[in-house]
């Protein structure tokens, strides 16, 4: 059952990922990307990372995709007016990424399966590692400084975005 769910979600993610690239209309690309993100969130739930699944849907499907759609609508790009690359450049792109795929698969397919059964069975049976309680404890003790630094990063990103968006700066 879990294996079938895994295959279904993987198929959905890869198919919609390909459609993001091949679709001519940018709006359709964004919508396919949303489906891909939901499939990845399903993978997170399968992996017992419930908190990350929720954050992933909120941040990506909620915030980032709305931002993309907003910019597409603002710039009025929802038409198929994009000039295409030459066929040679397209062929080179396909060959390059295909070679990358072949190399990565060839390098990683012999990866020995991690001996997880012993580690996983050491736990209490109920796997609660991905829940908010557990992750929050780690985040606010071990990773407190990076967490606070992230707020500085957001502040500077916000100021930068506003400055870039202003039409004329005195």
């Amino acid at each position, binding site marked *: *059952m*879990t294996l079938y769910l*895994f295959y279904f979600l993987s198929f959905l*993610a*890869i198919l919609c*990922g*390909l459609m*993001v*690239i091949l679709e001519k209309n940018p709006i359709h690309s964004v919508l396919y*990307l949303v489906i*891909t*993100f939901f499939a*990845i969130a399903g993978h*997170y739930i*399968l*992996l*017992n*990372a419930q*908190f*990350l699944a929720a*954050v*992933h849907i909120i*941040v*990506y499907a909620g915030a980032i995709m709305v*931002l*993309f759609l907003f*910019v*597409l609508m603002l*710039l009025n790009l929802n038409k198929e007016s*994009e*000039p295409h690359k030459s066929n040679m450049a*397209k062929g*080179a*792109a*396909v060959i*390059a*990424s295909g070679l990358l795929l072949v190399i990565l*698969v060839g390098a*990683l*397919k012999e990866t020995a*399966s*991690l001996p*997880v059964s012993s*580690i*996983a069975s050491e736990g209490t049976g109920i796997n609660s*590692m*991905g829940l908010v309680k557990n*992750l929050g404890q*780690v985040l606010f003790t*071990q*990773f407190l400084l*990076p967490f606070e630094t*992230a707020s500085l*990063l*957001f502040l500077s*990103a*916000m100021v930068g*975005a506003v400055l*870039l*968006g202003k039409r004329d700066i005195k």
Partner: protein
Amino acid sequence: MSAIQTIPVNLYILLSVALFCIGVLGVLFRRNAIIIFMSVELMLNAVNLLLVAFSSYWQDPAGQIFVFFVMVVAAAEVAVGLAILVMIYRNTGSTDIDVLNKLKN
């Protein structure tokens, strides 16, 4: 029955590699800068998925915290990147990346 008892980790590695290569293909294949941004997001998500898989298989929460920070950085990156894109559109009238070759000569 959870995934880590039934699904070998190799499948997650293969899925992440496939998603990452789709992202690379998108960056090389398209000329619209917004699609290229989306492909970069796809690559980031492939890496995130692999980090969550390893973290879950090793029962180590640090990997999931790291994914959390990757999401934070990705959100900031998208905000600034789209602002730059709007600026480019305002100055050149298109989001075609091949227009931006003024540094070439």
